[in-house]
């Protein structure tokens, strides 16, 4: 029932950066969808996370600005202190409204917006974290027929977030960090 992936979302909180470090270098450059990364992080001092990610992949890493047009094969990092919404399948909007789950960016906000916009053509992965953020979003994506996965809670530095997702979605795909790139490369 899963259709072609038009966008891949990766959400993470505490303990997820090391997973990304492991996964990013292994992702093929010919993937046919954009990757959106939503991470909880501090807004001040400004971080150079996007430059850091750039050093470990030959895909373009872009910290998005408002109304950025997204294209396949690029990695888009949601900036600190903004939510990311999809205006349509090609354009994002940033949003500085209230925090959701004590977070801005909120993973739920982007996951839900993707479900609305891309329907069943979304794939989402939720990584390590100490928050509840992202779980509702995974459920929404699944309801719309998209594909959802989590980091295997036993492999997570902070297992609260993926474990909570597993409780809500018992049949969700569980991935070890070393398997994630392959999972992504094999997405139709």
């Amino acid at each position, binding site marked *: 029932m899963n259709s072609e992936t038009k966008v891949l979302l990766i959400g993470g909180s505490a303990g997820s950066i090391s997973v990304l470090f492991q996964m990013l270098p292994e992702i093929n450059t010919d993937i046919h969808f954009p990757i959106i990364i939503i991470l909880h992080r501090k807004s001040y001092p*400004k971080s150079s996370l996007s430059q850091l990610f750039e050093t470990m992949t030959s895909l373009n890493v872009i910290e998005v*600005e408002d109304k950025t047009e997204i294209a396949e094969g690029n990695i888009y990092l949601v*900036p600190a202190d903004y939510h990311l*919404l999809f205006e349509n399948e090609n354009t994002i*909007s*940033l949003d500085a409204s209230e925090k959701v789950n004590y977070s801005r960016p909120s993973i739920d*906000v982007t996951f839900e917006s993707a479900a*609305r916009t891309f329907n069943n053509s979304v794939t989402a992965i939720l990584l390590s974290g100490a928050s509840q953020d992202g779980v509702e979003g995974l459920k929404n994506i699944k309801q719309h027929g998209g594909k959802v996965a989590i980091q295997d809670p036993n492999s997570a530095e902070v297992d609260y977030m993926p474990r909570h997702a597993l409780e809500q979605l018992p049949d969700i795909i569980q991935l070890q960090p070393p398997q994630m790139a392959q999972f992504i490369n094999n997405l139709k």
Partner: protein
Amino acid sequence: MELDIIKDQEMEMLLEDVSAIYGYDFSQYSKASLKRRLNRICLVDRFASFAELRYRVISDKTYLQRFVEEITVNVTEMFRDPLFYKKLRNDILPKLGTYPFIRIWVAGCSTGEEAYSIAILLKEINLYHKALIYATDINPTVIEKASKGIFPLSVMKQYSENYIHAGGTKDFSSYYTAMYDVVKFQEELNSRILFSTHNLVSDSSFNEFQLILCRNVLIYFDKELQNKVFNLFDSSLQTLGYLALGDKETIRFSSLEKRFKQCKGHKIYQKMS
């Protein structure tokens, strides 16, 4: 969980009603954001269906202000993006200090936190006496709040940290008096701020400024409306004046791009011609 109480088509219908009855035109607001806000208002104000919301908006004039307040985003902070304010303090405002009179427009000021931040900066570099800050917003309710200078005590710790990161050296609490769970900022700080309503969608230029701040407002507009507002700012700025946008907003792709020069590392653009 059902994602949307309100469908796209219903949203369009409601926006047409609001425009026809009350003259507020939200048709060029970002649809993604607007839809979130409309669904949020249904939850917060307990409308079980679109029809209920629509009936209330159409039939209850007094509800409209609340509607406008809820669908526009009024999240703001004092000294948000401390490095931006540091740049204003150390570079931009001292340059404006060479003019006999400084006019600043805070467009989309919401509850006024940015206007007060600018007032504090100007005061500390001894320019406030010859400055005038115009702080405007579409929504009369937030303007009313802004003019009172009363803010929650709970956010002062954050604002104080922002202020220090922005280069502030004073005791931030010296600017306000705490009363129970709120603080009131010194009267003197808003003595040179003019609060008034102004709708960026439909109202025209009303003065010429040396600095216009419009930060994290345009993200809620579609590209076409963004361009229209950029032109409004252009015609409201004197040559060599500055336009300051939010950290993730840009004049790239607009007609201003060629005539404005960006301050390196900041979303501050100077009008060159």
